[in-house]
């Protein structure tokens, strides 16, 4: 067989075209003959075992660190959607929440077990609330939020596009369903100050919500979805709306309500005054109030730590398994007699 130009394309010995060729055309020649220098990774036992060991010994500490980080977060979750309904209305929650004549005020007390260090984030958490529902997600107009009433094409906002013949601003289901429960926190020392500024993304305030766009004709309909907006404050400063408008990814989500900038000592009793206005009862959605500290990894979720530990553990296990098998039943590497036609013939010749 003719073998010219057929040398192995490892970086070691590539075919040498005529020496007088320029460097560039030599490179092109190697390209056309598919002889470019290349790295050829091979799954040798050593490599495989090393890779798994490496994964194992990086993942285990990572996992432990993550786990510890998640554990170090103090979190207080308070479900209040049933507790804040008077006993006599427990049978018909929807009627209660829809009845404007009944006061929605509600007081809860909770005793802290550990000290919580500032900043303490206050979230409300909704469950079984499909903020990612297709109809819901689409029902907004980003241009209107930025440009205000001068932007007329708000057909994407249906069914909350206009009411009483006038356009609604902000339009759309998302804005209409603005969460409107409010919380205040009291401790023995007095009222806890909740900072409700800068709870939304700065990029949203600056670029997505107009600073000269004011709410108009909002929640003027027969069916009120949620919170109302102060028509004298521009949208870019309506931070609750901005937070709400950043649609959650999952049907179980938290939204930032505010930040408490004081530490709360252990065994402190917090009295929470809340107005339970928001209707999740019609679809069985849960409402929770969350007070949590935070660290570099975020909230109290040990899943990542656990998954890292599991992965690392498995990797080390696999590495050991491989090593054992390799010692017990070694396959001579790079042995041509393992090629199937050689195997067959050696079997018959014996």
């Amino acid at each position: 067989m003719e073998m010219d130009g057929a040398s192995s394309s490892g970086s070691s010995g590539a075919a040498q075209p005529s020496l007088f060729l320029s460097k560039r055309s030599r490179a092109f020649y190697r390209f056309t003959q598919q002889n470019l220098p290349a790295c050829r990774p091979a799954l040798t036992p050593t490599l495989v075992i090393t890779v798994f060991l490496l994964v194992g010994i990086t993942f285990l500490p990572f996992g432990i660190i993550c786990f510890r980080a998640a554990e170090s977060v103090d979190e207080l979750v308070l479900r209040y959607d049933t507790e804040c309904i008077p006993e006599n209305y427990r049978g018909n929650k929807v009627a209660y929440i829809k009845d404007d004549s009944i006061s929605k005020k509600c007081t809860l007390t909770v005793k802290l077990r550990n000290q919580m260090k500032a900043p303490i984030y206050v979230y409300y958490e909704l469950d079984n609330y499909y903020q990612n529902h297709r109809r819901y997600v689409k029902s907004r107009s980003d241009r209107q939020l930025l440009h205000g009433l001068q932007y007329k094409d708000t057909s994407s906002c249906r069914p909350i596009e206009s009411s009483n013949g006038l356009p609604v601003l902000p339009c759309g289901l998302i804005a209409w369903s603005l969460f409107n429960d409010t919380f205040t926190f009291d401790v023995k020392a007095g009222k806890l100050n909740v900072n409700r500024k800068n709870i939304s993304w700065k990029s949203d305030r600056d670029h997505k919500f107009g600073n000269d766009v004011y709410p108009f004709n909002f929640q003027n309909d027969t069916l009120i979805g949620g919170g109302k907006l102060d028509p004298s404050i521009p949208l870019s400063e309506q931070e609750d709306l901005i937070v709400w408008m950043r649609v959650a990814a999952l049907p179980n989500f938290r939204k930032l309500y505010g930040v408490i900038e004081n530490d709360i000592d252990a065994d402190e009793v917090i009295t929470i005054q809340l107005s339970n206005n928001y209707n999740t009862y019609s679809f069985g959605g849960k409402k929770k109030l969350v007070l949590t500290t935070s660290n570099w990894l975020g909230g109290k979720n040990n899943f990542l730590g656990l998954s890292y530990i599991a992965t690392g553990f498995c990797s080390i296990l696999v590495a050991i398994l491989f090593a054992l098998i390799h010692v017990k039943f070694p396959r001579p590497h790079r042995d041509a007699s393992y090629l199937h036609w050689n195997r067959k013939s050696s079997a018959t010749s014996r």
Partner: protein
Amino acid sequence: MASERPLLIPSPRTPAPDSTPIPFPTVAAARRSSSSSSRRKTAPPHFRNLSVENVDFSAEMHSSTKTTFSIETISRSASKQQPQPSVPRYGSRRSESVNMGSSHKEISDADARLVYINDPERSNSPVRHPNNSINTSKYSILTFLPKNLFEQFHRVAYIYFLILAGINQIPQLGVFTPAASILPLAFVLGVTAVKDAYEDYRRHRSDRTENSRSASVLSSSSEFQPKPWKDIRVGEVIRVQSNETIPCDLVLLATSDPTGVAYVQTINLDGESNLKTRYAKQETLSKPPETLSAIIRCEKPNRNIYGFHGNVEIEGSKQRVSLGPSNVILRGCDLKNTAWVVGVAVYTGKDTKVMLNSSGAQWKRSRLETHMNRETIILAVALFVECALVTILAGAWLGRHRDKLDDLIYYRKRDFSDRDVGKYDYYGIGWEIVFTFFMSVILFQVMIPIALYISMELVRLGQAFFMIQDESLFDKERGNRLQCRALNINEDLGQIKYVFSDKTGTLTENKMEFRCASVVGVDYSGDPATAADTGEEGVSVAVGEQIWRPKMSVKTNPELLSLLRTGERTEKGDKAREFLLALATCNTIVPILTETDDPSIKLIDYQGESPDEQALLYAAAAYGFTLIERTSGHIVIDIFGQKQRFDILGLHEFDSDRKRMSVIVGFPDKTVKVFVKGADSSMFGVVDKTLNVDIVQATKSHLHTYSTLGLRTLVIGMREMSNIEFEEWHSSYEKANTALFGRGSLLKAVAMNIENNVSILGASGIEDKLQQGVPEAIESLRRAGIKVWVLTGDKQETAISIGFSSNLLTGDMTQIIINNNSKESCKKSLADALAITKKMTGKSPVGHNSIGVDSKKTPLALIIDGTSLVYILETELEEELFEVATSCSVVLCCRVAPLQKAGIVCGIVMLILIKSRTDDMTLAIGDGANDVSMIQKANVGIGISGREGRQAVMASDFAIGQFRFLVPLLLVHGHWNYQRMAYMILYNFYRNSILVFVLFWYVLYTAFSLTTAISEWSSVLYSVIYTALPTIVVGILDKDLSKKTLLKYPQLYGSGQREERYNLKLFILTMMDSVWQSLAIFFIPFLAYRHSTIDGSGIGDLWILAVVLMVNLHLGMDIFRWNWIAHTSIWGCIVATVICVIIIDALPILPGFMAIFHVMGTWVFWFCLLAILIAGLIPRFVTKAVTEFFMPNDIQIARELEKFGNLNEDPPVSEITTRTLSNHQQQTMP
């Protein structure tokens, strides 16, 4: 004559010398034409007449001497005006016999095209013929868009995507914004359209240059004036100068040669570089074209470039003169060695034969693509299941929330914006379910990979580029590269199980060499000596001061040579001289002189259509019988320095029924003899039985010896003709020749009549040398598990001997020979053969799939001849034949009769047999017109672009220069192409399904409302930008094994034959892998971000980045060779993805504004990404490692060998084990 060769169309075969032959009989001729000056200009000064001064009897024919070039009409016109009645024009005769291949029916006026010479107006009425402009382009600017789109939408997948894009435009179903939904399809269509447009632009440009070339056309003012090619019309008279290209198909009217001969080179037409002779008719030759008024009736335009059928009727004479293919010169030919020709345009523009033949190879679909369609259907089913699942769940959800939907905050069925309370975008649960279904189809549509088709096209293009560039497929001798004529079956080259090969010209060089002769019963095959050994100068001829020498020297037998020289007066000597005279005369070869460096020495180059005849002539010259001149009426032979002139009184050309040819020669002493030459089977039938039986017997036994040596044999006979006989023959010959109807069969009858009672002069043995590297190539193919079937016209002995010399047969093979003359015996021997195969393979041979692996069994070889094959097929024993044939590793079909029918029988029937009963891939390789049907029928057709014309190449999918290139083509490129394409298809399925699964998991958490967290633009760009390039690069460039390894271990080819790289199992594994990875991608962030403030766009960005990283790293894990191109494409794609995601999130108008930056700013994001990638890839990595550890396949072992440098050491057990296990029994069946 190629008597042993299946010859369907008398296609010329000659070696291709690159030298420019000097003009042969160029009698100084003056024409009354108006442009004699230009003629003078073009005629080179060294024009010489080949006729020689000391020919004492040539006065009446040639009065010219060398370098004569006079304006006066010399004896030429006289000899033309009164041609000797006893010398029929060779030219006309030839045309008739050439015509025999085609039909002989007379054409009726209705079927004919009427061409009025020099009267384009009448010629073009009532039917207007197209003008001579050609248009090879497919589109014009106006038609491009509709036509191109129409062509592209022939792909069903594109229609599917179009329909989905259409559905998406319905407001209720709009999953994507209109622009996003159309983008992928538009992108794919756009890329293809740009490619097509560029190709078409190039065609337009070349058409324009072609159309504006200038031709010299006879105008109404009786002058030749320049005119662009495109304006030439049928009926116009055109003059072509030497070395010019013929602008359209012309019927020759006159040439610069007084006998009407013209030489053309048809290299552009059929790739042959030897000169072909064409003739102008006597009747038109004599009149100047401007005064000629005649009607040509010819057949309607057709594709046959070797056929033309028509006649010319000159006004004023009742006679119709027939026209054959030798009277036309076709567009694209070059005029050579002829000062000028004048012809009338009969076919122009798109009617010309070359244009009618310009269609490409027929469309084939590769095996892999067929399998791919099966998997596509599986994916479609999976898609349907997914959509149905979503639909059902959505229906259930809607049903459960039915009464809440009105004021459900995130649903809000009721719409108060109008005065009357209506429903917003809600049409009842039934409709909602239907909508959900369609929307989910739209959302999950990429399950069917849209980019796969265009990727495959691009990959094949790239693969073809590398195949064409490959040096080991480059024919240095002729400068031919591989031609990829079909661009959609590259990967089939890696799965071939059967190779059907023609012998002559494919395995052999088709370059004949005279080896031995048997003259009147005496064998002269002993030790041949070259002329140099004997010190003889006998191979050269002195002509004046010049020495002419045959181009090729042949080894001579000293015994025969001395007998020829000395034994002039003995009977034996006479016979020997007659034998050689027969060799020198009984042919259609034209000697052409070529220059050498030494001006006093010229080489005689025998140009002709049959390489056998050339070999015989070179042999004759070596023995002192040198043909130095041929004109249409006579030949001049130099016999030991003495020039003698013989009149060629008649010639019956070779045809495949008679399998012989004969020539009637008038000797200088006025005697007339018939020399006959042909295949032994046909010649012994016409031998004079009363003559010496011993000679016949001796000759027969010599022939047997020759054929066992693998030589091609010819028998030469002679017969003297009395005057009465001659007159009788002559009158019938003339009659047949001028007959209007059935000329071919009449001529055949005349030939049969004269070709009998011949006495045997002897026989010749010609060697057709094997091409370089053929035995090694066949050995490699055999070791690669490819079964080689060779079809040959040779006798059985010749076939077997060639089989051995080409390594097709080896000593350890058991030969099964089926060679019978009756149906019954055929049946019996087939049954016996079946029993043998059963015994040998040790099991029922029906399980054909495993046979290729059974190397430990004795290999079987089947040798079957054409007649037996026909009998077997007639008696419906196909099943048995198939079983026998498939259990044999080699099949030799010999004695394939050159009849069209039988020729097809062997190649095609065997092919169809294989194709109809198994799925195994077949490859046919051949070089001649007779292989065309085989090449077209096989899964892969390969043409040898050699000496034999371009018919095979035109029909082929790939064209290579030599047989041995088949080995790198199949074993290296085929293997690579197959494994690359297989991987690419699987990868594309995986790549798209992983995204669909991620989307699907998310849908389960959106109340089944088909929301996507991943931005719609990202999901649209996913398959066209984010992940498209690396798979194409890998599909073109990645190599699992180096060329060296693949050639060293041909057995590695088996991976393609066994479909190891693409099968249902692998597909399912890949899909399972993609499900696992999608789970990792979806659920790790899902769980990590549960109870968090994460917004949809942020987690969507994480998902899409994870998907892209995952699929690219997955690809990276499977790359065998990381060169800089692979690095660039993979890392480049990842970077491009990040950039795209960032750009998408930087648009304030999209809801996901800045989400990527917020999410990237947290540690969770990066931890998630790392966890996803590791967790996702671990199962695949483990599987890979485990298989490579414990159940490595050959390719993996070979890769280890290659990487760790043990490749050059031979393994302890030789891989050629079949040899060591040989058992030398040979079974020959009666």
